[in-house]
């Protein structure tokens, strides 16, 4: 019963820190960073993933094609084969200092998360491209359109529609994975709530609220994905 009897007091402590000692500013800042990293990371990931996937499905007649496909394979193998924390640490402490670029930690996080999700999205996108009837590509090519025009105008839009639920899951994964950016010193929601907890060494309520915020974010994204699916489903409907 200890848990329930102490809860009101712990809530009061949290409420005091959160409202009166500017804890909410901390959390809003963290929330902002989490969203920035996840959204920009996803966008970078979609661009990188689409490029890698599109290169991978080119018929490998030319040596230069095979070369870029190999690079794509290595890229995917690296980013899927190492934990995101390791990639963050390598990026922040090794890669960027090594090339002499001094970026704010948030930017480094965005870039690393973008590169990381690019690897996953390339595989998702490849599945999506393969799920589109090859006749669509043939029809485009037969009309005189180039491989890339047909890819961009016909195949990828249909592929994206097929993979939208999976892409939504990727975004959800990304939101949750951002919770490790504290390792390199960026302030996300996680860090913000740990900070509030440390204030009075009462961690229970802050961490519960933190979990709640993550769940709410994920539910909102799921809803958004469902709405978008419905919109993109227009061309499938028999009566429009």
């Amino acid at each position, binding site marked *: 019963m200890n848990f329930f009897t102490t809860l009101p007091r712990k809530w009061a402590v949290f409420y005091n820190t959160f409202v009166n000692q500017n804890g909410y500013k901390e959390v809003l800042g963290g929330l902002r960073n989490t969203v920035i990293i996840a959204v920009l990371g996803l966008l970078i990931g979609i661009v990188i993933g689409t490029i890698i996937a599109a290169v991978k499905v080119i018929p490998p007649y030319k040596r230069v094609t095979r070369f870029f496909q190999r690079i794509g394979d290595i890229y995917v193998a690296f980013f899927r084969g190492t934990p995101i924390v390791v990639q963050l640490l390598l990026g922040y402490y090794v890669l960027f200092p090594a090339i002499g670029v001094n970026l704010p930690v948030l930017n480094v996080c965005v870039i690393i998360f973008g590169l990381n999700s690019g690897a996953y999205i390339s595989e998702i996108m490849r599945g999506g491209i393969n799920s589109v009837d090859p006749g*669509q590509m043939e029809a485009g090519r037969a*009309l005189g359109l180039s491989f890339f*025009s047909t890819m961009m105008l016909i195949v990828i839009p249909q592929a994206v529609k097929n993979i939208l639920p999976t892409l939504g899951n990727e975004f959800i994964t990304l939101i949750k994975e951002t919770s490790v950016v504290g390792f390199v010193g960026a302030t996300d929601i996680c860090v913000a709530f740990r900070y509030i907890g440390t204030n009075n060494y009462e961690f229970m309520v802050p961490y519960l609220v933190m979990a709640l915020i993550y769940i709410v974010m994920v539910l909102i994204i799921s809803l958004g994905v469902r709405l978008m699916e419905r919109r993109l489903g227009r*061309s499938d*409907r028999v009566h429009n």
Partner: protein
Amino acid sequence: MTVSTTKTPVLEIKDLRKNFGKLEVLRGITENVYEGEKIAVIGPSGGGKSTFLRCLNCMEDPNGGSIIFEGEDIADMHVDINRHREHIGMVFQSFNLFNNKTVLENIMLAPVTIRTKRLRKAKLQKFFGKKDVVIDTTPEQIKKEAEETAMRLLRRIGLEEKANVYPSTLSGGQKQRIAIIRALAMNPKVMLFDEPTSALDPEMVGEVLDLIRQLGNEGMTMIIVTHEMGFAREIADRIFFISDGIISEQGTPEEFFEHPKNPRTVEFLSKVL
């Protein structure tokens, strides 16, 4: 043949070969297709007739031989095949309308995309000081012209009220007729039909064949792979019988159906007629 030889060849096919791995599908086909000629390609399945057709616009890259179209050997891998494909229309068995585009967009997409790209290239060349580049159009103009052409073609087949619907709402016959006018919107010099009625319900075969017949009467050069023997006989100037990777017999429909010479043809005809 007496009529055709006076005309100029649209396609000159010389010793065309294609293999998939070790399997030789085409084993040397040499034939000319003349302007305005209607050719029906028939033969047993697995004989290579679809592969032959798909080699003519390099949907399958030939492994040997040459195909001369508009003065260039399009079987050569270094040729810009996209430019030539604009003038070789192709119609598929499974229609292959673009699912994410409306009917009108389906027809306009290729002309608009290709011409806009060409315009952009011309502008770029002019910008970098090339003198003899003429820019006589605008993106809006290109779009307007393509839309006019598309609507004219849709009116022709009586489907103008379907301009803004997606292909999933159409019947098979409507899809195939739209696929045909989509190819026509590029002003092709020759049309390739790959079993255009094989995926259709029987009651829709007629409307598609009617449209193909109309094109033939207007003088379009056509090569049609088909299983419709009656249609082949009616429309074709010449029949190619492809079996085992070669044209084992060819001739006018009368010669071919009434007096087949090759025992392979006799056997095939006895089964299908």
